[in-house]
């Protein structure tokens, strides 16, 4: 099983778990690895490979490989994939050492630059040769990065496709839609990294977690099978009431799916629902029913279901599918005019521009509007000149420089509440009662005996009930006719011994639903909250806690 824990627990990983390795290649790839390192969402060997020492210096990955140290002298590949390839070939032994001995190897790279496009195929080949399963998660460059980079990316993509077992491809242009136009560029990159990290985690979980309805790599590849396909990925996790639907809603919110609209055209859709032990069939049914509204009837739904105790009381829904680039662009171009009014349409890069190179060769039916819109927003000649004058390494430098500032706070903050457990209500109330002045001599003794404030309160409660018993005792004869349970007095008399024992035994408390404890509620349905029957008097339960 894949370690899926937020708090890394080395002892929890058993030997049968597949060994996973994640290699980040180039600037974008190492950002993703950083993100994964910080989030600790996947238990895997994390390797960062780059030609540029500055990037490696910033990287938080535990293993770092400097590609082509002798050749490059620690300077980046400068947007030249050939240099990147050479560098990787120089360092192939180092790479092989790092990735060897893993069952699954993820390679994450941003295509289009020098190191990412050049080295990633080489590393993929090395990884494949170790006999591991190789999955590549790659991003295509932003369209403003120019055609040259796009061409380099496409070239690298071709090479990768031959070597990888599965290819998950993200469109950076669509990533731009993750955020609002007014958000900073750091946030944009941050979000994109986060999304890729999520997808990595999801893919590794899906393919390796034993599920009730298992999904394998075959399902994943068939979901992604699409000529020149781009990955549609959505992930959502939710807890609390209505969690299933909430999780689905979050998954659909992913801009890569465009609020579910893009799902209308997919042929295959992989859906994975995972939950803790409390996952119910009704919830799963609800999720699938809701999803059905977004998916056409003829779509092949690959459904997987997993129960993972680590998820606690939350449900995670993962949607993976792919869509051909043409369809994707057609969708963006054909968006209704009203769509343009939405802030999303203002995102820096409308998708159509991406089509430039393929269109030159064979104009698609969508070409005319595409060309028009491209002219409006960008002059393609200008881009060409810009690329020619200043090699796109500038852009890469930008990404690199941001890196140290990429703060992972938001995500960590999101994860934290999951770990929180609502504290027991009774315990919560205790500090308040700690102010009770101890009144009887016996209680004083007991309170002295108890170390913590909490215990002293309990002690005083118990002690008082003991003293009361003794005080009321003379009147007991008169009270004898009351049908009060006899066991009651026995427990109170025991109180002193209970306190004496309290620190000694740490045996599991056994809670008996003894009817004698519940008084007039003995024939009603118990009100159990967190394993406690709340019908039993509060003071009595406090005392039982004390006995532990």
């Amino acid at each position, binding site marked *: 099983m894949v370690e899926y824990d937020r708090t890394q627990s080395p002892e929890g990983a058993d030997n049968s778990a597949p060994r996973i390795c994640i290699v980040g290649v180039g600037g974008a790839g190492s950002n993703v690895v950083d993100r994964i390192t910080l989030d600790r969402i996947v238990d895997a060997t994390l390797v960062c490979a780059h030609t540029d020492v500055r990037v490696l210096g910033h990287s938080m990955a535990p293993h770092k490989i400097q590609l082509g140290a002798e050749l490059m002298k620690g300077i980046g590949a400068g947007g030249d994939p050939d240099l990147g390839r050479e560098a990787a070939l120089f360092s192939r032994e180092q790479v092989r050492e790092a990735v060897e001995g893993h069952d699954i190897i993820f390679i994450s790279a941003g295509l289009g630059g020098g190191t990412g496009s050049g080295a990633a195929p080489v590393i993929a080949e090395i990884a494949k040769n170790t006999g591991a399963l190789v999955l590549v998660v790659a991003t295509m460059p932003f369209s403003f990065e120019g055609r040259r980079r796009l061409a380099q990316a496409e070239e690298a993509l071709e090479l990768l496709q031959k070597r990888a077992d599965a290819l998950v491809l993200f469109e950076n242009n669509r990533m731009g839609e993750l955020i609002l136009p007014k958000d900073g560029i750091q946030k944009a990159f941050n979000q994109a990294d986060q999304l890729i990290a999520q997808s990595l985690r999801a893919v590794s979980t899906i393919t390796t977690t034993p599920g009730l309805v298992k999904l394998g790599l075959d399902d994943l590849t068939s979901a992604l099978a699409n000529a020149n396909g781009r990955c549609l990925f959505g992930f959502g996790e939710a807890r609390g*009431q209505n969690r299933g639907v909430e999780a689905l809603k979050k998954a659909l919110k992913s801009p890569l799916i465009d609020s579910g609209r893009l799902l209308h055209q997919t042929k295959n859709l992989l859906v994975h629902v995972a939950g803790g032990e409390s996952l119910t069939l009704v919830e799963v049914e609800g999720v699938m029913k809701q999803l059905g509204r977004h998916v056409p009837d003829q779509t092949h739904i690959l459904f997987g279901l997993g129960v993972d105790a680590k998820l606690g009381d939350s449900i995670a829904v993962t949607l993976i599918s792919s869509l051909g680039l043409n369809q994707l662009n057609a969708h963006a171009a054909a968006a209704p005019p009203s769509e343009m009014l939405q802030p999303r349409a203002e995102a820096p890069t409308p998708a159509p521009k991406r089509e430039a190179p393929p269109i030159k060769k064979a104009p698609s039916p969508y070409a005319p509007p595409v060309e028009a819109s491209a002219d409006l927003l960008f002059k393609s000649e200008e881009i060409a000149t810009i690329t020619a004058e200043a090699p796109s390494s500038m852009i890469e430098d930008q990404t690199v420089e941001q890196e140290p500032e990429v703060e992972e706070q938001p995500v960590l903050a999101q994860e934290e509440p999951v770990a929180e457990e609502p504290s027991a209500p009774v315990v919560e*109330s205790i500090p308040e*009662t700690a102010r009770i002045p101890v009144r009887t001599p016996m209680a004083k003794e007991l309170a002295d005996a108890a170390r913590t404030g909490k215990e002293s309160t309990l002690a005083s409660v118990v002690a008082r009930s003991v003293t009361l018993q003794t005080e*009321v005792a003379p009147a007991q004869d008169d009270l004898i006719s009351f049908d009060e349970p006899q066991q009651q007095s026995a427990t109170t008399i025991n109180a002193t011994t209970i306190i004496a024992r309290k620190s000694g035994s740490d045996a599991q408390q056994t809670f008996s639903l003894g009817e004698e404890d519940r008084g*007039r509620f003995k024939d009603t349905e118990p009100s159990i909250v967190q394993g406690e029957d709340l019908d039993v008097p509060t003071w009595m339960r406090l005392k039982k806690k004390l006995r532990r």
Partner: protein
Amino acid sequence: MAKSTIYAGLEIGTHKICVVVGEAKRDGAIKILGVGQAPSRGVRKGEIVDFEKVQTCVNDALVRAEDRSDVMIRNVFLGVTGAHIESLNNRGRHRLPDDQTEITEDDVEEAKEIARSVSIPQSNVFLHSVTRQYIVDGQEAVRQPIGREGRVLEADYHIIHGVRGRVQNAIRCVREIPLEVEDVVFNPVAAAQVVLTREAKLQGALMIDFGAGTCDYVLYEDGMITASGCVPLGGDHITNDVSMALQIPNGRAERLKVEEGSVLYDEVPEGEMLSIEDDTGLILGEVERAFLNEVMNLRTKEILTQVRVRIEDHLGRLGAGVFLTGGVSLMKGVDVVAREVFGIKVTRAGSAPVSGITATFENPQYSAPIGLIRYAQILDSEKPFLSPLKRLGRRMQELLSSVTL
């Protein structure tokens, strides 16, 4: 229009059974005509456990109410509660067809339909589904979406559901009296109608109906009902704790609680003793007052904490604070404890002004039954006007459908 309608509300509580007869005027005013009350037997934690005993008690209350109000009661609005009642918020999302930009009535219906198609356990039925708001293209708090331009319409619903059998039992019990049940209302929803003012609802308020059997709550945020539910703990539990701690029978514990008890023990002078008397006035024993108060305090705090746990997420958004009503809210010091638990302003409140017997509406014990009258009035004002003939037709329809139930 000067036309007014007379409604009767019936609350089968754990401590008392109460019938309130009220006159709702068209202008929104309510006049209480009479209240009939009888001590309750055979109810535990807000749910009926002994049909026959309850029916006798309801009859008693009914006769008294009829006497005082001089109205013959045929139909009642029945308030229900119980641990089985739960609530959730659901949002139905409806995307308009591509060739349409204006939201029509059909779209609203569709969104509502989707919102209501939430999966609740099969054995459960909807008690209420209240529209909280509509959301058009992510713009929240739209009251009236029809006619607006938009692409996506969402309907936000608050759904309260309970176990069919248990709700049905209460209805059946009342029908056998015989009384016709016009509608079933979750108690706190009714009580909130008279306890919380519009301003309080807008500012955000939590109303807790602290009754003998259960502690029901409703939470309003921005004028919308956001959470509601029932904690199956109440005044009876306090009594039971006292009875078991002091080893005295329940009846005496109840009297001790009401007459002497308080949930404050900080100011109680040390060693102050209380004498426990039996029915004839003979002194049976003595209890330290601080001890009695402490037992009560522990339980009260626990019950309120249970409520707090359930509404924790919304606690920061309650501008108007907590409103305590119901019988236990009369207990000494309960507001102080509630303040400790919730950390925000706590108000003890009865029903808001209605005319009629003044003593009744000021007493928080009657919040729920008076609320039923108000609820009935609101319900009627929302219904489209029907001619008497149509009204008859609808009644027949209801009658026929109820036979098949």
